[in-house]
C-alpha cells in the first residue's frame, strides 16, 4: 500500500490542483453561473494552499515517483513561479472590466488545467510525460485564447494558435521519435548515460558514427520548445494571439506558459548534456547545441526588437517585446553552464515582475479606455498618475536600466555570456537593449505628453495597489537582488 501512498504524497501539489480544477467546475454549476467571481476567489485560495506546500519543499532531497516524475528544487522553482503568476492572472481576470463575470467559471478551470500541464512538464526527465504536459498546457491555452468566441479577433487568435501549435507539436513528436529510434529510450538521463555498446547505438554511439541524425532530431525537438517560448522562427503565432486573446490570458501566455517552455528546455538540455553521468562525447556535443541556441538568441532578440518599433497596439508591442526577451533568456541557456542557467532562471524571475506589471497596466488601461492603441495613451499619465509611474518603472526594467531588477537580470546574462566567450552575442544583445530603449520610452513619453482635454479614469484601488506592489518589488529586488539570487541558487538543476 505504501508503495502507492508515498509517490502520491510527492504528487500532492498536482493532485490538489486537479481537485481545485474540478472543484471550480462544480462550484460554477452549483452557483448556476450567477457570479463567477466566487469561483475566482476559490481558485486564489487553492493556489495559496498549493504555494504553501511548495514552499515547504524547498531544499528537500530530490525524489522520484512512478518512474517518470522527478520532484526536485528546480521543478519546485518553476511550479512556484507558475502558481505565483497564476494568482496574479486570476486577480487580473477578477478585475477585468471587459468581462461580464457571469457563466465564466470554466475560465478558472482552464487556467488551473494549464497549470497542471506545466507542473508535469517541469518535473520529468521523460520525454513522453514532457510531451503530455506540454499538450495539456497547449489544449487549455487554445481554449483560453478563444475564450471570447463571439469576438472575431479572439476566435481568429485561437484558430491560429491551434494550427501552429499542432504543427509544432507534430514536429517535436517526430524529433522525439527519432531520438527514441536512435537511443532506445525516452528517459533523458538514460539517453545521456548509455555507452553505446548495446543496440540501438545510444546517443554516444550514434554521435561517434554520424552526428547528422542526432542534429536532425535536436533541431526538431528544439522547435517544440522554441514554439512555447516564442523564439524566432516559431514566433509567428505570438503577436496575433497576444493581441486577440483576452488580456489576462495574454498575460498567462507571456509569463507562465513561456516560463514552462524555458523550464522544459533547461531540463532537457541539463539532463542530456550537463548531468553527472553524461558520456564525454555527448557533453561535447552539448557545446555545439549551445552554438545553435546562440544563433537563435541573436536572431530572436533582433527580430523581436525591430518589429516592436513600429507597432501601434500596446499588446502587439509587448508581444514582440516578449519575443525579444526570449532571445535574452537564450543567452544564458546557450552558455551551457550551470551559471548561465542560473542567470536565465534569475531573468525569468525578473521577467515575472516587469511583465506582469506591464500587462496589468494594459488591462487597466484597456478597461478604462476600451482600446489598447499607443496613440490613446497620450496624457494618460495625468489621469492615472500612480499606475502610469508604475508602468514607467516596468518599462525602465524591461529596457534593463538600473536600479531595477531588469538591469540586474541583464547584467547576469551578459556576464555569463562574456564568461562563456560569446562576445559577439553579448554585443548584439547590448545593441538590442539600445534599440528597445527607443520603443519602451515612446510609451513613457506618450503617457506624460500634453494633457488631454477631458475625461477621468474610474478607480480600481485594489488593482492599482497590486501594480504598485509589483512596481516596488521591481525596484526593491533591483537594489537587493541577493534574496532572489539565493533562492535561484537553491533551486539549480545542476
Amino acid at each position, binding site marked *: 500500500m505504501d508503495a502507492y501512498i508515498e509517490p502520491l504524497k510527492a504528487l500532492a501539489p498536482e493532485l490538489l490542483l486537479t481537485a481545485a480544477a474540478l472543484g471550480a467546475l462544480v462550484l460554477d454549476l452549483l452557483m448556476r453561473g450567477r457570479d463567477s467571481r466566487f469561483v475566482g476567489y476559490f481558485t486564489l485560495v487553492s493556489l495559496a494552499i498549493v504555494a504553501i506546500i511548495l514552499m515547504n519543499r524547498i531544499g528537500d532531497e530530490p525524489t522520484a515517483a512512478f518512474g517518470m516524475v522527478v520532484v526536485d528544487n528546480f521543478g519546485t522553482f518553476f511550479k512556484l513561479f507558475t502558481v505565483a503568476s497564476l494568482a496574479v492572472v486570476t486577480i487580473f481576470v477578477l478585475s477585468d472590466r471587459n468581462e461580464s463575470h457571469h457563466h465564466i467559471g470554466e475560465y478558472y478551470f482552464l487556467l488551473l488545467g494549464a497549470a497542471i500541464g506545466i507542473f508535469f512538464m517541469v518535473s520529468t526527465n521523460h520525454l513522453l510525460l514532457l510531451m503530455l504536459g506540454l499538450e495539456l498546457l497547449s489544449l487549455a491555452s487554445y481554449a483560453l485564447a478563444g475564450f471570447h468566441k463571439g469576438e472575431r479577433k479572439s476566435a481568429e487568435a485561437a*484558430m*491560429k494558435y491551434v*494550427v*501552429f501549435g499542432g*504543427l509544432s507539436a507534430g514536429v517535436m513528436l517526430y524529433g522525439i521519435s527519432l531520438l527514441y529510434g536512435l537511443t532506445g529510450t525516452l528517459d533523458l538521463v538514460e539517453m545521456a548515460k548509455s555507452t553505446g555498446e548495446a543496440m540501438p547505438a545510444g546517443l554516444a554511439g550514434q554521435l561517434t558514427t554520424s*552526428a*547528422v541524425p542526432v*542534429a536532425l532530431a535536436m*533541431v526538431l525537438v528544439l*522547435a517544440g520548445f522554441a514554439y512555447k517560448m516564442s523564439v*524566432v*522562427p*516559431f514566433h*509567428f503565432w505570438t503577436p*496575433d494571439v497576444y493581441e486577440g486573446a483576452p488580456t489576462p490570458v495574454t498575460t498567462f501566455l507571456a509569463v507562465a506558459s513561456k516560463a514552462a517552455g524555458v523550464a522544459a528546455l533547461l531540463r532537457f538540455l541539463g539532463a542530456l548534456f550537463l548531468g553527472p553521468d553524461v558520456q564525454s562525447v555527448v557533453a561535447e556535443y552539448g557545446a*555545439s*547545441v549551445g*552554438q*545553435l541556441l546562440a*544563433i*537563435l538568441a541573436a*536572431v530572436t532578440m533582433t527580430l523581436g526588437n525591430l518589429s516592436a518599433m*513600429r507597432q501601434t497596439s500596446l499588446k502587439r508591442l509587448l508581444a514582440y517585446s516578449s519575443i525579444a526577451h526570449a532571445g535574452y533568456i537564450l543567452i544564458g541557456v546557450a552558455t551551457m553552464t550551470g551559471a548561465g542557467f542560473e542567470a536565465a532562471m534569475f531573468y525569468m524571475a525578473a521577467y515575472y515582475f516587469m511583465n506582469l506589471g506591464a500587462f496589468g497596466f494594459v488591462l487597466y488601461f484597456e478597461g478604462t479606455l476600451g482600446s489598447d492603441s499607443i496613440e490613446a495613451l497620450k496624457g494618460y499619465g495625468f489621469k492615472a498618475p500612480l499606475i502610469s509611474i508604475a508602468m514607467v518603472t516596468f518599462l525602465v526594467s524591461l529596457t534593463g536600466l538600473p536600479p531595477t531588477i531588469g538591469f*540586474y537580470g541583464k*547584467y547576469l546574462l551578459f*556576464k555569463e555570456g562574456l564568461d562563456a566567450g560569446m562576445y559577439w552575442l553579448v554585443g548584439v544583445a547590448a545593441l538590442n537593449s539600445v534599440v528597445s530603449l527607443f520603443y519602451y520610452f515612446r510609451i513613457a513619453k506618450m503617457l506624460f505628453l500634453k494633457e488631454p482635454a477631458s475625461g477621468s479614469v474610474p478607480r480600481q484601488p485594489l488593482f492599482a495597489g497590486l501594480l504598485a506592489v509589483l512596481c516596488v518589488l521591481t525596484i526593491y529586488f533591483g*537594489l*537587493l537582488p*541577493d534574496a532572489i*539570487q539565493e533562492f535561484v541558487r537553491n533551486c539549480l538543476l545542476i
Partner: protein
Amino acid sequence: MAVVNWLWWIPALPLLGSVIAACLHAWTLAARKRAPEASANDTDRAARLAWPVASLAVGLAFVLSVVAWSALSDLPPEARVLESSTWNWIDGGSISFGISMLVDPLSSIMLLVICGVGALIHIYAGGYMADDPGKARFFAYLNLFVAMMLQLVLSSNLLGLFIGWEGVGLCSYLLIGFWYEKHGTSQAGQKAFVVNRIGDACFLIGSFCLIDLFGTLDMSDIGAGVADLLQSGEHNFQISLAALLLFGGACGKSAQLPLFVWLPDAMAGPTPVSALIHAATMVTSGVYLVVRLNPLFAAAPGVLFFMGLVAAATAFIAGSAAVAQRDLKGVLAYSTVSQLGYMFLGLSAGAWSAAIFHLVTHAFFKALLFLAAGSVIHGVHGNQDMHKMGGLRKHMPRTAATFIAGAAALSGLPLLAGFFSKDEILTLTFARGGGHMGLWLVGLGVAALTAFYSWRMVGLVFFGPARFDEQKQKPHESPTSMVLPLMILAFLAVVGGALNLPAVWPFEGSAGVLHHWLAPVTRLGDEILFHGLAPHLTSRTEYILLAIGAGLALIYSHKGFHAYKHGLERDEQFQNQRPLLQGTLRDAWGIDGAYTRWIVQPIKLLAFCVSVMVDKLLIDAAVNGAARGARALGERAKRMGDGSVAQTGLWMGAAAVLLALVWMAGGGL
C-alpha cells in the same frame, strides 16, 4: 571601528523632506488648476508648508551629524570610524560593489558643514523665496541636493560617491535653471551640466583605472593598495594616470582651470542656491575627493605639482577677474573660484588638513557673503549692479555689519577665520620648498587681490553716495528669518579660526585642533609623500610668514576700501585709462570667449553640416527608403498573415531549415 545602523538616516531625512516638498508642490499645482481664479493666498497653502518641513529635515540631519561627531570623539583616534550595515549591490565574482556608509573624522567635518550651513541657508531661504510661486519645488530640489551631498561624503566607495557626485550635479543644474522662464538661466544650467560632464567623464575613466589596479572601489582599500604597490617598489604609471583623471573630475566640480567657466554663469540661480551649492558645499567636493584619496595623490607627486600649477593659475585669474566685476554676485563667484584654487594649492603641497580647514572657514564666510548679498539684492528689489548701489549701510545696518564681517574674514584680516586658514595653506606651501616657492609667491599676490576686491565690494555697496533713486526704490532691511542666519554665520566667520590655530599660538594645546582630528585620515598620505619627514619651519619663520600675510591683508584692505568708499571714480578711471586691461579682467582673461570661438562655434558648424549633409541626404534617404521597403514588406507580411496559415507555416519551416543549415555549416556536425 564601530558599527551603527542609523547612519543612513542622515541622507534619508533630507530625501524624505524632498519627497514631502515635491508632494506639496503637486498639491499646490492641483489646487491652482481646480480654482484658476482664486488668489495665490488660497491655493498656495500647501506650498508654505514646504519651508518648515525642509528646514526641519536638514536640522534633524544636523543633530544626527553632531551625534555622529560625538560618537567618533569617544573612540580612540586610530579607531575613529563608524560604519553602517552594508549591502552588496552587484556581486560579480572577482569584483563586487557594496553600498555602505562610513563616518570618519573627515566625513564628520563635512557632515557638520553641510548640515549646519545647509540648515541656516534653508532657514534664510524661507524669507528669500516667500513670494515665489514655485517655492515648494525649490525646497524639494534644495533638500534633494542636501541628501545627495550627504551621500557623496558618507559613501565608503567611489561608486556610491559617484552617485552623490552626479546627484548634486543634477540638483545644481535644476536649481541654476530654477527660474527657467527668465532668459539665460536655462542656458546657464545647461552650461554647468555640459562642462561638468567633461569632468565626470574623467572621474569615471579614473575610477576604471583604479578598478584595474586594485580590483576595488572601496576608498580605504585603495589607500592600502597604493601603499602596498609602492612597497613592492614598482613605479606605476597607472597610479599617476588615475590621480590625474580624478583631478580632472575634481576640476569640473570644483571649477578649476580650464573648466571653471560654468560657475560665474551659475549665479543665475536664486541666491541661497549660490550660497549653499556654489560656495559652501558642492564646489568643495573636488577638494574632499582629493583628501579622501590622499594616499593615491601622494603617490603621484608629479600630478600634485601639476595640481599646484592649475590651482595657482586659477586663483590668480579668478582673483584678478573679481577686481573688475560690476555684478555683486559676479565678484563673489570669481572669488569662490579663486578660493577653491587656494584649497587645491594647499593640497598640492600635501597640506590636506589645511585645505579642509580653508574649506570649512570658506563655507562660513562665503555662505555669509552670498546670503548677505542676497539680502542686499532683496532689499534693492533685484538689482545686482554695484554701480547702482551705494550708501546702503544706512538702510540695512544689520546686513551691512554681517557683510563687513564676512568680507573681513575673506580678506584675511588678522585673527579672523580666513586669516588663519589662508595663512596655514601659504605657510605649508612655503615649507614644501622647491617649485612650490613660486606657487607661494602667486598665492601671496592673490591674497593681496582678495583683500582689495573684498573691500572694494564693501565700499561700493555700503558706503559712498546712493547711486539710485532713494525716493523711488526705498531699500529696506530684510526680515529676521533672513538676518538671523547671517548673524550666526558672521559669528562663525569671526571665530572659526580657532578650529586650527597655527603651531606658534602661545597657549599650550590649543593649536592645530582640526589637524589632529584629521590625522588618522591623512596619516597614510603624509607617510607616502614625506616619508615621515614632514617639512618643518622654525617658529621665527612662521612668525615672519604670519606677519607678511597680516601686513598684505591690512594694506590692501585699506587700499580697496579707501579707493571705493567715496564712489565710482576709481572704476571709471580704470576703465578710461586702461580699457583693454579692464575688459580682459572683466571677462576673466577671455577664457570663456575663447571656448565660444574655438570650441562651441566650430562644433555648432560641424553639427550644422552633419544635420544638412549626413542627416538630410544620407540618413533620411536611407530611413525613408527603409521605411518604404518595410511598408512594402509589411504589405507582403500582412497578406501572408491574412491569407493562409499554410503559407506562414512554409515560412516557418523554411526559416528553421535555414537556421539549422547555418548551424550545421558552422560546426554543428
